[in-house]
């Protein structure tokens, strides 16, 4: 995973002094933020009681996410819809962005997924401490029979530390691996007739591109479900 010169639509940013070695995923993520913000802003201006058009779409998305998160987190689920729903939409659009020619998935970069996982990690622990108090939260980590605390506490600590690692590595490797598979298939499809000296490239990567879109959706969903269950576990605290 060395230095690769990916040709994307955002390479023009490299002309600005100071932005010369910017990772192509970073301006792509700015694009996703601005695009999602514009869609939501356009969908919520001049709101009508009976929605239509873009407002309908935005309301449908919000309601589906809210009911899904409510089922994931039995207590106070709807309050978490802005945070978790934004996380889900952001990751979903970032994952799928790489399929479009000229764009690159920002989540195909471990830095991006690690920062997302760290946000979730910090949220779970801050919420847990705010809900139970510092000592109470440590007691939750220690487990039920307090005698077993010297055994359970390191186990739970390691579990807690392994969570951001697994979240970030899962998302990164899924998206990065799919990108690599699609890239290899493009190369095979372009070179498949080389032995016969034809230069007819075959689009062998198209079924795998559909699978990559599906994988992007599933990985965003899994990130959402795991984040919701971690936050719910920190709030209710029962092991």
């Amino acid at each position, binding site marked *: *995973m*060395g230095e690769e010169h990916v040709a994307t639509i955002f390479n023009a940013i490299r002309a600005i002094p100071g932005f010369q070695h910017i990772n192509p995923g970073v301006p792509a993520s700015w694009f996703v933020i601005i695009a999602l913000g514009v869609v939501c802003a356009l969908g919520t201006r001049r709101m009508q009681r009976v929605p239509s058009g873009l407002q309908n779409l935005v309301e449908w998305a919000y309601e589906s996410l809210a009911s899904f998160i409510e*089922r*994931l987190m039995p207590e106070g689920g709807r309050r978490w819809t802005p945070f978790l729903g934004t996380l889900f939409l952001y990751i979903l659009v970032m994952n799928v962005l790489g399929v479009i020619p000229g764009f690159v998935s920002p989540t195909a970069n471990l830095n991006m997924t690690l920062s997302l996982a760290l946000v979730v990690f910090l949220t779970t622990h801050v919420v847990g401490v705010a809900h139970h108090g510092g000592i109470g939260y440590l007691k939750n980590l220690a487990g039920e029979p307090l005698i077993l605390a010297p055994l359970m506490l390191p186990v739970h600590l390691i579990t807690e530390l392994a969570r951001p690692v*697994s979240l970030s*590595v*899962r998302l990164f*490797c*899924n998206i*990065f*691996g799919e990108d690599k598979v699609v890239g290899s298939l493009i190369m095979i499809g372009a070179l498949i007739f080389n032995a016969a000296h034809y230069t007819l490239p075959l689009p062998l990567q198209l079924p795998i591109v559909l699978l990559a879109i599906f994988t992007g959706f*599933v990985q965003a*969903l*899994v990130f959402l*479900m*795991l984040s919701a*269950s971690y936050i719910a576990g920190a709030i209710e605290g029962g092991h």
Partner: protein
Amino acid sequence: MAYGVAMALAVGLGLPIAVLAAATAQGKAAAAGMESIARQPEAFADIRQVLLISLAFIESLVIYALLMFLLLMGKLPAVVVQ
């Protein structure tokens, strides 16, 4: 030379072994999920959610092996044609 052989075997065989174990486990999880949906079709949404989380946990173990593969792939010794 033995190091190169060992490295090549590790890079080549590490991921497929992980895939074997994960495919078996995911097959069992999916079979249990389908059986429980057949027994209680109205619980489909809950079962689907638990099934997807379980499949993602098992799949993430394969993804760790893929990460090892990606890290080791650049470290393979160069092929010397004599």
